[in-house]
């Protein structure tokens, strides 16, 4: 085994990822200065935060909405979830939810940009990887102490309450995978956006010169 070759490959990969991440940051900064993309980001962030907070403690809120409670009480359930978004800032688990929401909102903003700029192949790639990341993050939520998680009913239905320990371990792996996939998607789409923005600027300059 040639460790030097492996080391070189790892070094090249890391520097490529680091470079692409820098380019992605630049394109995200550029898009934030465009009001329409900033609005997409803010809306996506709110929707993502709301959904993740809604299912933060398992399926309890969903079941209340499906219950025979009067409409007023159901609206109250929805309102309480909105307040829960603020509670996220108070604990580590909530901070994870906020970080995941930011990554999801960035992915959606970059997806909209790449799709609108006819980079449909990259957009589809990004949508599938980012989508899997978002789903993993969503199903991995819950309270490990008490076995509450979105995944738990599936595991317990298959193998009884003892399987909750398995659901917990799976949830932990999924939450890490969710972050890796979302970061990968943001870097990839951010890099594609950077190239697109560069090409656009070049065309604009060329057009201005020819005029």
């Amino acid at each position, binding site marked *: 085994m040639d460790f030097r070759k492996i080391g070189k490959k790892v070094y090249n990969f890391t520097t490529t990822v680091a470079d692409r991440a820098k380019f992605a940051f630049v394109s995200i900064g550029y898009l934030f200065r465009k009001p329409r993309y900033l609005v997409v980001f803010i809306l996506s962030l709110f929707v993502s935060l709301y959904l993740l907070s809604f299912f933060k403690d398992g399926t309890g809120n969903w079941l209340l909405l499906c219950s025979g409670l009067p409409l007023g*009480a159901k609206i109250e359930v929805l309102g309480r979830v909105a307040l829960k978004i603020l509670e996220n800032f108070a*604990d580590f688990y909530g901070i994870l939810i906020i970080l995941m929401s930011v990554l999801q909102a960035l992915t959606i903003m970059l997806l909209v940009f790449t799709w609108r700029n006819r980079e449909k192949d990259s957009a589809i790639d990004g949508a599938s990887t980012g989508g*899997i990341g978002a789903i993993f993050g969503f199903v991995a939520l819950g309270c490990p102490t*008490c*076995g509450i998680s*979105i995944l738990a009913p599936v595991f317990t*239905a298959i193998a*009884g*309450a003892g399987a909750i320990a398995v659901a917990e371990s799976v949830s932990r792996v999924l939450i890490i995978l969710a972050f890796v996939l979302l970061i990968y998607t943001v870097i990839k789409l951010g890099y594609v956006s950077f190239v697109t923005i560069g090409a656009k600027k070049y065309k604009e300059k060329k057009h201005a010169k020819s005029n």
Partner: protein
Amino acid sequence: MQRAIRVVAILLAVGFLFALIMYNTMNPPKPETLVWNQGMTLGNAEEAEHFFYDYTDIMCPYCDKFALAMDEHLEDFKKEYVENKKVFYELRLTALLAGFHPGEAAVVENSTNSASAGYCAAEQGKFWEWYGWILKKLNNDYFSKGIGDSATATEHIPQLDVKYFTEVGDKIEGLDGEKLLSCTESDEARAAIGKNTDRAAKIVQGGLPYYVFNTYVSPGFDGNWEVEHDWKSAKMLFDAGIASKKK
């Protein structure tokens, strides 16, 4: 074309997972209606119109948020739900956390000892008084200090001596502490709790607390340790349970 197939495959897989989660959430197993322990009930089963079963573990923080709010409003609950709405309420005390975390000695011991002590307090007819006392004690000593109070608590409750759950002193009139201790350590109490836990394991889907209020079934509790907030959340569950019978 390949991309389209990949996206369709992902959508199908995700759709299947969600369908499975929703199906299992909406079709839970039916609980036994026979009373497990008369000492842990409120109301009269023979006259009741609504049957509420609450599967819990004293060491589960989410269960205790609900239980503390309920303890603070026990008289309101009795008046509004047990008397007016004819609710029969049964707390089904288990050591399920021991099953969820079999490799963690502190969780296994605390969960088993606390449930056994609860069983023994019920034997002396003082379960609700003991339950309120131990909930407040755990809250004062640990949960209120951020120890073992949530999903992401960095510090966990250490392995507690069995006496932690039985040294009531003169705080509960009519409850014999010595008798409580010897009963808690007995094989009989442990076997009873083991039996409860096995039975609960067949019913509980999606973790603790687990509420079966008439046909409304819900795991987890949306609480934040503020009694009034948590009482409101608890009332929503009770009302959803009552509404499930009207449906």
